C-alpha cells in the first residue's frame, strides 16, 4: 500500500517546494513547521532553484534490494543555486564524469516501485548540466 508519507511529501519531492521563513528569510527543504534559525512559525512557499552544484559525491556499489539493478550509481550532496543542500542521486552519467564543483539540474524521475503490482513512486534526482 502507498505510504501516507509519500502522498504528504509530493510537493517537495515532485515540485521542489521549500519554505522560506517570513521573519529571518532562511530557506528550508524539506519545509519545516518551526524555523531553526529564529523560531518563527510563519513561512512563505517557495521553490529550490532548478540548478545546483556538486559539493561532494560517492558511488554506491552495494545497494538495497530495490536499487540493486542500478549499481553502480552516484549519490551527491548538491547545493541548489538558492543555497539549500540536498542529498540526491546523480543519474545518466559515468562514475568518472562526477566532480566536485560541477553543475547539475534537478529532474523528475521514478524513484522506486512498490513491487510489480504496487504504486510507482516519483521524485527529484539530478543530471549533469
Amino acid at each position, binding site marked *: 500500500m502507498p505510504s501516507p508519507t509519500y502522498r504528504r511529501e509530493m510537493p517537495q519531492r515532485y*515540485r521542489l517546494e521549500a519554505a522560506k521563513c517570513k521573519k529571518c528569510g532562511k530557506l528550508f527543504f524539506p519545509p519545516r513547521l518551526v524555523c531553526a534559525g529564529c523560531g518563527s512559525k510563519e513561512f512563505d512557499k517557495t521553490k529550490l532553484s532548478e540548478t545546483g552544484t556538486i559539493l561532494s559525491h560517492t558511488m554506491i556499489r552495494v545497494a538495497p534490494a530495490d536499487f540493486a539493478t542500478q549499481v553502480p550509481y552516484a549519490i551527491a550532496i548538491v547545493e541548489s543555486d538558492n543555497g539549500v543542500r540536498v542529498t540526491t542521486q546523480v543519474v545518466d552519467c*559515468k562514475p568518472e564524469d562526477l566532480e566536485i564543483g560541477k553543475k547539475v539540474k534537478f529532474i523528475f*524521475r521514478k524513484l522506486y516501485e512498490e513491487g510489480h503490482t504496487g504504486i510507482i513512486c516519483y521524485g527529484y534526482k539530478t543530471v*549533469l548540466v
Partner: protein
Amino acid sequence: MVGIVGYGSYLPRYRIKVEEIAHQWGRDPVTVKRGLMLNEKTVPGMDEDTITISVEAAKNALKRANIDPAEIGALYVGSESHPYAVKPSGTVVAEALGAVPNVHIADYEFACKAGTEAMFVAYGLVKADLVKYALAIGADTSQGAPGDALEFSASAGGSAFIFGKEGVIAEVLDTFSYTTDTPDFWRREGAFYPLHGGRFTGEPAYFKHILGAAKAILDKSGYKPADFAYAVFHMPNGKFPLTAGKRLGFTKAQMEPGWIVPLMGNTYSGSSPTGFAATLDIAKPDDLILLVSFGSGAGSDAFIFKMTKRIDDVRDKAEKLKSMLENNRIYLDYGQYAKYRGKIIMNE
C-alpha cells in the same frame, strides 16, 4: 487567435546504434540502415517512463509559455506506454507541474497518434472557451519485440504543447482527422510486445491515412504544398515520411528540419509532435507548417499552423531539440539495452 503559446520536448540521453541491434540478431547493419534510413535511437533510463518524459517536456513548454501552471484547465497525455493500466499518467504529471487540483485530466491512447489526439482536444477546449490554457503531451517509451524490425526504431521521448488565446506563437488555422478500422498493428491487454501486419503496415495503413488526411486538409483550407515553409509527417522509420511527403508534392527541404528520426528513432506518440517541435525551433514569423500524425488502428490527424512574431521571443527559453539529439549522448551495448528495457527475466 487560438494556438500554441508554449512548446517543449524531452529526449533521454541513452542511445543504441542500429549496428548494435543488427549484430545481436545476425542482420546486416548496412542493409538495415539503408532500408529503414535510421542510425540510432533513444533509450529511456531505468528510472524514466512516459510520466517522467511528459513532466520534463511540459516543464520546457512552461518555460516558453511563461504562464502560471495553476491556470492550465486541461491536461492530456497521449501515449501507448502509460505506466499504469488504471490511473492516468496525467494525474502525476499535473501534480509535478503544480497544475492540480483545478484541472481536467485524461490519458489518450491511439498507437502513434495519441499525442496529436491530445493536441486536437486541447485546441478545441480553448477555442470553445471552456479553459484558458490546455496542455497536450505526446510521449512514449516504445518497445519492439527482440529481433523484430520494430526493435530498430521503437524509442523514447516526447513533446508538450500549451494551447491558449494570449501570447500565441503558432496559430491553428485548420485541422482534419481521417480514421478507419485497419488492423495493421495492435497489442492485446497483457501482451508485452505489439504485433504488426508486416507489409500491411505500409500502403493500406500509413500511406492511406497520412495521404488521406493531408489531401483533405489541403482541399479544405485551399493551401498548396508550395505555400508551406515546412511539413512534418509521422516517422515510423526514415523512409516512410519522405515518401509520403514526396507523393503529396513536398520537397526534402520542407521536411528536413522535422525529419529527426535517423537520430531519434520512432518515439510513437511523441514522433510527429517532436518533429514539429524541432521545426518550431527554426520557423520564422508567418511561416505555414503542416503536421500530419499517424496511429495504427488506424488514423491520422492533420493540422495547419501559422507562426507569429512571438516565436522569436520564446524559442531560446528552453533547450532546443537539435541540442537534445546531439549532446550528452550515452551509448549502450545490446546487453545494457536489454537490461534497461526490462527484456531480461529476473527473479522476484
